[in-house]
């Protein structure tokens, strides 16, 4: 049995693309949920301030806290991207493992 490196590389690339696409859905959902909930919170903050239910200092402090929320959300997106990268790398290694395993099986 021949070991066709070009074919193995093409399969590895396809596996990487598959893993990335699959994980894009994983990132897209939470990212849009973060944006949507931020919009609602900012609306709420503004509305409570306009009704004078919170004072100016409290309003500004909580607005400042939104930066920390965003930082935390970006770290969550980073984790999802790392999971996607890990899945892509391991899918490619898996293809190579199978190809080498098949060769050994025929030796």
């Amino acid at each position, binding site marked *: 049995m021949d070991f066709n490196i070009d074919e193995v590389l093409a399969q590895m690339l396809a596996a990487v693309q598959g893993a990335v696409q699959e994980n894009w859905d994983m990132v897209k959902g939470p990212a849009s949920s973060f944006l949507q909930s931020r919009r609602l*919170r900012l609306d709420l903050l503004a509305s409570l301030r306009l009704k004078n239910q919170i004072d100016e200092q409290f309003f500004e402090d909580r607005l400042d806290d939104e930066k920390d929320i965003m930082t*935390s*959300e970006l770290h*969550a997106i980073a*984790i999802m991207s790392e999971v996607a990268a*890990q899945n892509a*790398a391991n899918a490619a290694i898996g293809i190579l493992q199978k190809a080498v395993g098949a060769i*050994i099986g025929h030796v």
Partner: protein
Amino acid sequence: MLLKGQRIRAFLQTFVSLILLTMLLNSCSIHLVPQYNADMEEQIKNGAKMSDRLYLQMIVAAPDSKNFSIYEDKYLDVQVEINSILFQDEIRPKANDIIVSVQKLRDYFAKAMEDHRNKKSLSNGELTIYHEQLQAFWRPVLIEELALKKAK
């Protein structure tokens, strides 16, 4: 005769190389993120639920029943839960991003608790904002753990 010996040697070399490559590949998988932990997911959900309940209780309480002293124990319960999650993440390999999110949650919760302690009582407007923002700090922490479930 010599040619046959060389061919056998070449075959054995290739065979051994492939075996070694397979062993190497079998032990080789990339780890960029920590391993998913089902207990951790439960603990995060539980912590989020405890802080949700605490703030909802304070919001529905009568204006004269929103004093910090009434809720101090419940605040401490949530704080202990957050500290425990952070402690476990700190000893988890490759958990740097997760640690940042939990630290942000811990710091925010401590700040909200301190504000209540200093003011003695909070208005419903203040409690509502703290409630919403706390949920927003819990969300990425849970999403991070759930993302690990999908790691292969």
